[in-house]
């Protein structure tokens, strides 16, 4: 089993989800639950910090897809920050930059929510 950790932080206005390790078909559920939790509490301004993320599989990418429309329909957004080159490559191949805003630094992503 690959190691995967997830932490949620941020301020009241913007939630930050920190992903660490391997996000694959097995660990995707954990990520899904974390997002479900936030959306359930109407916390739809979400930044996903991928600094510690070593690997993301299609199932992991699917989690982003599964939530983005719901989050946007509630007036929120999911923004990505601090992707490693390798993980960015996966996002990029799939064309995610068209769908998601991707930032070099978490602070920029958070700031973007404050003054869109």
């Amino acid at each position, binding site marked *: 089993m690959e190691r995967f950790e997830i932490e949620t932080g941020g301020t009241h206005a913007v939630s930050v989800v920190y992903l660490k390790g391997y996000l*694959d078909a097995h660990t995707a559920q954990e990520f899904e639950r974390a997002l479900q939790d936030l959306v359930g509490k109407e916390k739809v301004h979400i930044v996903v910090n991928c600094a510690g993320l070593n690997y993301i599989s299609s199932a992991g*990418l699917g989690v982003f897809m599964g939530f983005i429309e719901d989050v946007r329909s509630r007036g929120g957004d999911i923004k990505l920050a601090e992707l490693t080159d390798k993980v960015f490559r996966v996002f990029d191949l799939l064309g995610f930059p068209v769908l998601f805003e991707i930032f070099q630094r978490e602070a920029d992503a958070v700031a973007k929510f404050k003054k869109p």
Partner: protein
Amino acid sequence: MLKKWIWVILSIVAVLFAYAFLKYRLIDIPFLADQVKEWLIAAGLVLLIVRLTRRAWFVRTNLVRKLHGFGLWMLALSTTAAMFPLSENLRPESSKAVQVLSVTFFHTVLGLGVLIASLLLLLLLKELVFVQRTRRTELQFRILLAALFLNILFVMIAGPEEKIHMPASFTFDSPNLFHVLLVLVSVLVGFRNKWIHYLNKKSKLSIFFAGNAVFIFFLTQYASLPRFLGPIGTSAETAVSGIAIVTAVYSGMALAAILIHLPSAGLMDRKMREVKSFQELSAVLGSDLKKETLVAKIPVLANPMVDADIAWLELEEDGEFHVVASYRRGNASMDIPPEAMRRRCREEVLDQRKTVLMNDLSKCVKGHSDVPFPGSLLAAPVASQTGILGILFAMKSVPFGFVEESQGLFQAFANQAAISLENVHLVEQSIKQQMAEEELRVAHDAQMRLLPQRMPSVRGFDIDGLCVTANEIGGDFYDVIPVGSGRVDLVIGDVSGKGAAAAFYMAEFKGVIQTLVSHFDSPKDILTEMNSFLRKQCDQDMFLTMVYAILHPSRRTLRFARAGHCPVGLIRGRKLSWLEPKGLGLGLVPDRLFRSRLVETRLTLKPEDVLFFYTDGLTEARNPVREEFGEERLARLLAEAQPSTAQSLVRTVADRVDAFTENEPRHDDITMLALRTLPAKKTKTG
């Protein structure tokens, strides 16, 4: 068993008849003195008693029936004594023939009957004394027998004048040391009445009253019992009087003990019910592995155990507690209390993590005075090692309905329930796993059947593909479709997610593609249609990456588009270039956006050019130190490969990846598809 009885009766009959005949000189054996005959019969009697009491009798008779037997024999003996009140009546007075007849009847048959009944009483008494026996019990019973034998010995030595004088009115006429000893030992043995604990309240009551009647009757008659044996001999007389005294003492003490136990009989019954509840739960656990049945049974067993009006079980699911089963005693008029109150009790249990006893709910549950709820409640956490599975409640409509002592038992029961639930859970999981493995196998087979079984031969080209499946279904697929009129379509794809669902989608997409090829002739159109299909038909979090290529073999032209998939490698000479035209994964965005972002690339292939398609399982294959095979390693390998055939290329790459990953388990399918343009000269001959 029957043989044993025949043996006993025959031996008793033989001994007594022999004795009677000797005694009344029906057979005259002159050289045998009376004294010797007396000694012989005494020895025979002692041997008989020793022999009989050594064996275990009435093994299969239950306790109540043993008690009934004991009482009935006491009754029979008393009745016999009452029916023949005067020993004088038995004296022979008339002619020799009548004498002989009356002697044989009264002195032998009656004497025999009384002796047999007495011996049976002794055996039954032994059974009662031996309930839950210890070494000490056995020793005490032997001492009792020894006291009995000592009395016989004493009478034999001292003569008939010293035989036991039955204390008819609880006084000893002329007590001797051995009589006193016998009574004392009887009292000692009288304490061995543990069987009383195993009687329920009802039996205790009935045995107490019926027993007293029999006991009093026995007391009035037992003093005249030995005289039936008198004509036979002093030893038999002594034995019967000894047994009668022991019986009287033992039954008297037992009745007194029952009287003492009567007030606590209800309590004992409850204890027994508690034990039974436990046993039943283990039985349920052993026999039933269905969660529903087990859950339903838990309150049913818990309720009588603590004598509650209502019991219910709440199980945790996603942080919420729900009542899953309840049991109400037949005549109780209580319902499960409202959620607000249950929450308050739950919090208490979760806080303390042990059984909580609320003696007066109206005081305990503050802030809910609008629901004045009298009564008392027991609540125990049903906890396993992994955490609290639920809470078991028992409730009574009266305050202080439960005793403090019930807490430990209730908790023990809840623990047992937790183990049972955990077991059921484990079994369910293992069944699920088995099913999952089976599902996986079926999906594997389906996946393999979806891949092209044979590569179509394409003039001027050499095509080969390979799919190395992972331990789980990865959702990879490829296909080479001869469309006709000089067109061959190549497709490679990867469905997001894993497992049977991915394999199922694969099958569906293969069908969709088969339909689309005949209607559209550009990769861009086909992929846009696929995107449309995915958007409409599939889950939101499901997507697909794909490279779609259309080859015109005669013109050696190839058009392809990449929908979020891995780049395509073009090996030309000793150089590798990655072709990565823009394109989004299928199912991610609406058709218009998808189409506007999709770039179609057009290539004219030269002889010995190789196009290499793959899925991310290849570059993401990991070695034991978590290093990925990666695009760079693949690029180097492809540039240096110099393949002579498409097949040799995919083989080489597969072998290299295998060597790289060593024994690491594969997480994803690895799929490759190679298209090689044959050298110019070969096209002529081909």
